[in-house]
């Protein structure tokens, strides 16, 4: 049975990081029980390996790293249960179901559209984008979190922004394809 001291450490972690972690997972995976499972698993991992938690500035990228890994694990598990599709395609399929025209008509909120657009991105681009523009991690911290080189992070961020800029769901919000993006599309 967990001791009170250990539970206290977990409570501190939850108070400080649960909401941003949950929102990060939601941006990465979309709504649903899968998000709750991933976040729960992430915090349980953090608690299990609490002695390995870094202190100071290293804590934030560490926590997001655990959250992102838990999201990836959850997505992979869901993919296996869904029918053993190819990892990348399946990961995208789990979290990026294109809304139907009727659903699009129902989506009036700009935030919802942005979330839909983010979820439509490939999983490999989604995590750097969310960590950069929502969690506020630097490229170096993102590189640590997703275990990629900073140059890779930079190119993925660029690619994610280019895809979002060309996303038609964001066009009517004034964030649609730029002229340069249209030229590239042509």
């Amino acid at each position, binding site marked *: 049975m967990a001791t009170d001291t250990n539970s206290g450490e977990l409570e501190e972690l939850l108070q400080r990081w*649960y909401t941003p972690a949950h929102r990060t997972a939601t941006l990465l995976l979309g709504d649903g029980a899968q998000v709750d499972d991933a976040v729960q698993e992430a915090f349980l991992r953090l608690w299990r*390996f609490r002695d390995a938690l870094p202190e100071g500035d290293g804590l934030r990228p560490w926590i997001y790293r655990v959250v992102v890994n838990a999201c990836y694990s959850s997505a992979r598990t869901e993919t296996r249960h869904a029918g053993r599709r190819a990892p990348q395609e399946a990961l995208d399929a789990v979290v990026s179901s294109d809304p139907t025209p009727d659903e699009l008509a129902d989506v009036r909120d700009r935030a919802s559209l942005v979330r839909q657009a983010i979820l439509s991105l490939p999983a490999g681009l989604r995590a750097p984008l969310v960590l950069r523009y*929502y969690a506020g991690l630097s490229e170096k911290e993102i590189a640590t979190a997703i275990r990629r080189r900073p140059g890779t992070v930079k190119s993925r961020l660029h690619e994610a922004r280019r895809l979002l800029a060309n996303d038609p769901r964001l066009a009517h919000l004034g964030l649609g394809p730029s002229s340069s993006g249209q030229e590239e599309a042509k």
Partner: protein
Amino acid sequence: MITDGEFSALIAEAAETIPEPTGADAILAAARSETDPPSVAAPIARVRRHPRGFVISVLGAAAVLAILIAVTLSSFSSPPSVAHSAGAPFASRASAAPTFGEGQMSAPGVTKSADSSSASSTSSADSQEIITTGTLALIVHERVLGHVVAELGAIATSLGGYVSTSNAALAGSSRGGTVVLGVPAGEFEKAVSEAESLGTLKHLSTTATNVTGQVADLGAQVNALEAARAQLEALFARAGTIPALLSVQNEITSVQSQIQQLQAQQRVLANEVSFSSLTVALAMPSPTHASAPSRFSTAWHQAVAHIEGGLSTLLADSGIVLFSVVLIIVIGLLVLFGGRLLWSFVRRRLV
């Protein structure tokens, strides 16, 4: 294209619309429901929860084991190297630095020495003349003392040698005996080994003296004296007066005497070189020591001796196999613990 700040604001706005999560209590409950929570400071528990480190260690150990087995098998297929240096110094008289056999050197109280102080500038490395002597101290029971003396004589005779001196006493202050054997130099080692088997070895020492220079000096002196004698005999033939004849006759007699003395020394040296002297000192156990050992004690000492002999034989015969097994075990343990440490490090990166 929008700026980074605008992009961050947009995504932050989207995130803010996500309802406030309420699952923290469920996480706390799940954590509390976990029994025996693992800790980073509990490496055994970590390995059990994450057996991949153990699997990696086992695979690494298996790979090292396979490599070592392959190396061992390949070494067996190659021509074997000489494991024991054969010490047979007495088989050849041309050996410049005679040594005693390795087997005898491992016995307690065994010493050897080589003396070449008598070598002169006329000695030649091609034909060394060496006198070998040895002293062997044995402990034998008084009931078999006579039998041992007889056996020593039989050994010398069978090897083409002789018994130089022999004495034995069963009572008094000089209980025991001494037998001096003369055996052909080439059979000296065999004589020692056979004599050893007649009792309990207490002490063994051998001495090899290089007399090549001494032999050469004697030969040169004899040659010179013979030449002088020839000249004196020529003078004797031409002597015209009686006093002159007597004087030359005296000189010839003196030279002839010196020649005979030197030739006698040559014969002695040749005999010493041809026949090695082995002095066997026979001692009987002290009365207290003789009466003390019980059957159990004797059996115990015999058992210990046999175990020592068995282990020695096992170590000598197993050779590279035993070494490889020990090496494999050591490397396997290193890989096992190294793998566990590595897995501990890797797991922290995987969290």
